[in-house]
Structures are given as C-alpha cells and as structure tokens.
C-alpha cells in the first residue's frame, strides 16, 4: 500500500493522476481467471456467498464490488453474469508457458529458465515496457521484475540470489480472491527466499487465489520447481515426476505427460491428481495446452 501511495504521489507531482489506482487495478486484473467465462465463478463467490441469508456480501471486497456493480446498473446476479459473458466473448484466452533446464542439458550444468506471457495483445501496453529493480529498504533480497509500467508485482523476475519466478494460467474450479495476489506474492518470494526449500516455505505461509501454474528457478540449487495451485492447495513438482509420467486425459484415457530428467516445464494444465480433477478446460492430447507442453518436450529432446 505504501508503494501504491508513493506511485500516486509521485505521479501527481508531475501532473498525472490516478496512477496508484491504475496499478491497483492491475493487481486485481492479474488475479482474474484466464478464461473470462470462468470469472463468473470468482465474482459470484465474492459477491453472493453469504448473501442469501443476510442480503449482504461476505467480504469487504465483495461489498465494494456490489456497490460498483449497482452504480453501473448491474444490480442482480443475472445482470452480472450477462456482463461477464459479454466480456468473455470479446477477450482472448490467456495461455502462458514456462521452462527450466539444467544439468547435462545445459552449458556448465547451470539452470536456465524461461517464461512466456500470452495474454491480451495489441492493447498499446507495449509502449510502456519496464524493468523495475527493487532494493527492499527493510532487508530482503534485491530483485527485478520484467514487464510493463502499471504492473506493481512480478509477471516474471529474478532476484540477487539467482531465484527466478514464473507463471502460467491454470483454470481450476477452486478459486477465491481471499489470498495473496500472485503478482505481489512472486515479488515477496524473490524478496524473502534464497533457494527452492525457502521458496516453498515462504509460499506455504500464505494462501493461493485462483488457479495458476508457477515456477521457481534457483541458481543455488541449479534446478527448477513447478507449483500447480488452486485455492487452498499447492502441488509441488520436480523433474521427471511419476505423477506427470502416468497422467492421462480423464475423458479419453490417453497419456498427456512426458517428464524428463533435468528439465521441467508447464503450460496451462496440471499433473497432480487433485489439480487434474478440478481443471476446467480440456486435457485432451490435442488441446492447445497439451500440444504446447509436448512442443516444449520435443524442443528439449532436439537439443539432446
């Protein structure tokens, strides 16, 4: 909040208003599900859970949303659902990917990591590319975020400890706004963790919001860890995990995994049984996400 107030004050000093609000909205937007239709689940949970008995939203955030929606004329659950459905029809699906390779696969055996953000394109935000370096004033590790201005947290980044953070959408039915927004959480991770073990401990100290795949690369471990997440649940993966090896598409029964030693990657589905069970999109071998998973796998094989 201090940062938001500082951004607002700094921008106002040069005649720009609303910068803090814009950045705050970015934090909210980043926690939206990747499919706008799935936003219905989060919004209706936030807006209407607990309202049946009391007529009030269950959370302060929910009350704020209800008031805003009412002012805009959306004063019923049906109207909110209609609005989200209209948004869904106008927006692209959101699909990201991440990769880590190390050991015999890389020069000197050192871990190399990567991340794609596949999101709304052509919005004009490319005119506001930005790398931000943070030196926490009260201790913690210096870290850099790579992305755009108005993004307060980390779409991706790297710390002075050689810790890298990554994200890819994962549509899970267990979702909530009542957790640590991932953009800020990834920054918090870089600030407070030194390696994969401490990254896991820091992660487990707070709750997830909506479903996401996350990745953490570590120079100290020369390795990469994947986190498949949904509200109140995280599944941790290293390379060549047996859960990934035996995973199948629930509908067809066809295999969809292909883990390998000294590499780990994720697109927009998961391999933990609970994460698979709660997944809302197709896990077919021909789905976009499984196709890209296999594309990364083949690329890694081509480099062997």
């Amino acid at each position, binding site marked *: 909040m201090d940062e938001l107030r500082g951004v607002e004050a700094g921008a106002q000093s040069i005649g720009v208003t609303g910068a803090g609000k814009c950045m705050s909205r970015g934090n909210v937007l980043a926690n939206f599900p990747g499919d706008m239709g799935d936003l219905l689940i989060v919004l209706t949970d936030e807006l209407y859970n607990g309202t049946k008995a009391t007529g009030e939203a269950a959370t302060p955030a929910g009350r704020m949303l209800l008031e805003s929606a009412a002012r805009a004329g959306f004063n019923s659950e049906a109207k909110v659902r209609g609005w989200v459905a209209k948004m869904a029809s106008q927006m*692209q*699906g*959101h*699909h990201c*990917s991440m*990769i880590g*390779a190390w050991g015999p*696969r*890389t*020069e*000197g055996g*050192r*871990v*190399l*990591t*990567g*991340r*794609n*953000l*596949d*999101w*709304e*394109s*052509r919005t004009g*935000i*490319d005119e506001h*590319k930005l*790398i931000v*370096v943070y030196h926490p004033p009260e201790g913690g590790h*210096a*870290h*850099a975020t*790579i*992305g*755009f201005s108005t993004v307060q947290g980390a*779409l*991706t980044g*790297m*710390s*002075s400890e*050689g*810790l*890298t953070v990554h994200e890819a959408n994962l549509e899970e039915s267990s979702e909530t706004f009542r957790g640590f927004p991932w953009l800020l959480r990834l920054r918090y991770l870089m600030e407070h963790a030194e390696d994969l073990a401490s990254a896991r401990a820091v992660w487990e100290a707070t709750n997830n919001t909506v479903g996401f795949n996350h990745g953490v*690369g*570590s*120079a100290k471990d*020369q390795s990469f860890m994947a986190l498949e997440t949904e509200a109140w649940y995280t599944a941790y993966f290293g390379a060549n995990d047996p859960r990934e090896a035996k995973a199948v598409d629930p509908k067809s029964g066809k295999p969809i995994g292909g883990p390998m030693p000294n590499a780990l990657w994720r*697109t927009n589905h998961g391999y933990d049984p609970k994460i698979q069970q709660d997944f809302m999109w197709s896990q077919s071998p021909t789905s976009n996400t499984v196709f*890209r998973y296999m*594309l*990364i796998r083949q*690329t*890694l094989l081509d*480099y062997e």
Partner: protein
Amino acid sequence: MGPADLVNATAIVGQKGGKDWMSCDGVYDGGSNVLSVAFDPSNLEIYAAWESGPKGNWAPAACSDYLHIDMKPFLLH
C-alpha cells in the same frame, strides 16, 4: 543448451498466431505472446522481449528482438 538455446526454446512455444510454431512469418492473427523472457540466473543475466508495433503491424514478443541485460550492476550494488 546455452542461453541462446533457451531463448530459442522459449520463443518456439510463445503463441505467435501463425500455424508454424518455428517461424516468425509475419502472419500473427490471434497471436498473444506479449512478453518472452529467458534467464541465466547463475550469471544474473536476462534475455527479454516484448510484443511490438501498433495493431496493424504487430509482432509477438517471440518474434521481436531479445534484449540481453546483465543485471549484476543493478542487483548487487
């Protein structure tokens, strides 16, 4: 694999919009790759690319120039 190979592996899977994932052929309808970054964390170096161009001349990050930046002077001072 070296850092350039990891950049290549990352770029291949970025959603460029064309049918050929290996190609930056200028056909980017439906492309959504707005940011593509590779890291060499042991050396604190990054390779970062962003989407580029206005709507009519858009290119995905994976088909834009990757900036190689040594982050040590910024992270370790």
